[in-house]
């Protein structure tokens, strides 16, 4: 991440740089109160991300049903929050005027792509029988897990910055991405873990995908060992990111192998979006922002959850809803890829304003 240059208060490419964006997170003239708040929030994120991720994997493995059985209420609840609710939480961003203004200025990503994805997948779900559509879902899942791994890189980078030890280095990033590529490939050649019911002819490549995953882990560990400063919280988040896909190669049960990934990803997201939503805004307290975000996420999550069960419906309009659900999830991938892209000025400014204790500790 690079700082926006220019004197304080000077418009930089149309944006006004905030005082703390140039001088650090501590607002000028602020007393010990904000510093303590920022320290607590930074610790909340670092510990929360580590514990939620580790807990998600442990919980999924412990609660996983045998074979092809359905999950119990506990695992079902964890999955509902980690999948449907986390996807719907993205809609909260559009309650903010600055996000709407940014979206209007970038209609391709925030308007046309979502409209095209939702309309296209709704139409596809109506026209294409599910037996054929499920093959296309392999590509959908590849995108989903690539989205997971991009978030993992972002979490590790943010943990490094928040701990003052710098973002992830190119080799550290390469290790995470290579391990992720192996994990994604492992899921595609072994789609039983995705419960898709397809039988691809490339199952014997599973050991090769494990070799790719292991190579990525080796690269990542080597890069981590070369790092000069390894604060414990950064190391924990980095290792979680690097080993994220390990359960894919360790378990035969879909829930033990994959549900942990889904839940960990979703909870990481809900935590950081919750912190962004909880930032005090003009005319809106942090608690109000959090309540609005929770309401949107839960209501949207219920709708997404219901639509996700309609793939086998004999009614075309219900299958269209199922297709729209797929498009909505892909919209989450597209919108997120824009809003968290810290090399771009708008996301950097937006996130620095919302979570200064992470980006400018």
């Amino acid at each position, binding site marked *: 991440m690079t700082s926006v240059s220019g004197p304080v208060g000077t418009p930089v490419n*149309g944006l006004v740089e905030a005082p703390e964006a140039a001088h650090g997170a501590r*607002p000028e003239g602020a007393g010990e109160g904000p510093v303590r708040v920022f320290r607590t929030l930074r610790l909340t994120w670092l510990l929360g991300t580590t514990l939620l991720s580790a807990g998600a994997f442990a919980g999924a493995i412990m609660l996983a049903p045998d074979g092809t059985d359905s999950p119990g209420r506990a695992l079902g609840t964890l999955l509902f929050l980690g999948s449907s609710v986390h996807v719907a939480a993205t809609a909260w961003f559009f309650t903010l005027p600055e996000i709407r203004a940014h979206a209007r200025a970038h209609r391709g990503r925030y308007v046309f792509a979502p409209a095209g994805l939702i309309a296209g997948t709704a139409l596809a779900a109506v026209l294409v029988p599910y037996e054929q559509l499920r093959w296309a*879902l392999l590509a959908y899942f590849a995108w989903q897990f690539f989205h997971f791994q991009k978030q993992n890189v972002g979490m590790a980078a943010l943990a490094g910055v928040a701990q003052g030890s710098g973002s992830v280095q190119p080799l550290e990033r390469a290790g995470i991405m290579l391990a992720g590529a192996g994990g994604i490939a492992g899921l595609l050649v072994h789609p039983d873990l995705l419960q898709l019911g397809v039988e691809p002819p490339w199952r014997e490549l599973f050991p090769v995908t494990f070799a790719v995953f292991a190579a990525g882990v080796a690269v990542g560990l080597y890069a981590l060992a070369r790092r000069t400063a390894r604060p414990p919280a950064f190391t924990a988040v980095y290792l979680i990111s690097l080993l994220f896909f390990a359960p894919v190669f360790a378990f035969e049960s879909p*829930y033990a192998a994959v549900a942990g990934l889904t839940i960990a990803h979703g909870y990481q997201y809900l935590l950081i979006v919750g912190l962004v939503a909880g930032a005090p805004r003009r005319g809106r*307290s942090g608690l109000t922002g959090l309540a609005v975000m929770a309401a949107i996420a839960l209501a949207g999550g219920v709708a997404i959850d219901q639509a996700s069960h309609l793939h086998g419906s004999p009614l075309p309009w219900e299958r269209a809803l199922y297709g729209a659900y797929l498009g909505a999830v892909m919209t989450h991938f597209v919108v997120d890829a824009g809003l968290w892209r810290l090399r771009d000025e708008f996301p950097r400014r937006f996130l620095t304003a919302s979570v200064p204790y992470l980006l400018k500790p």
Partner: protein
Amino acid sequence: MGENTPAAIAEPWTDWERPNGGGLPKPPKRPLGRIIVPLAVLGALVVLGATFLLLVSGPAGAAGMCGGG
């Protein structure tokens, strides 16, 4: 962007961006409604979410999609 930058992205976005930390530290007297209403909303959401999970939701798939696809 440029001269036609929308006002929404040309102004401070959070109280943390304002001089002296804006809304931090919190003012000593705060309207009770600003605490109670959001808490009530959050509580109601927990109840609604639990009700939905107990009564309506179907089996969840490991990757987030409906199970048994």
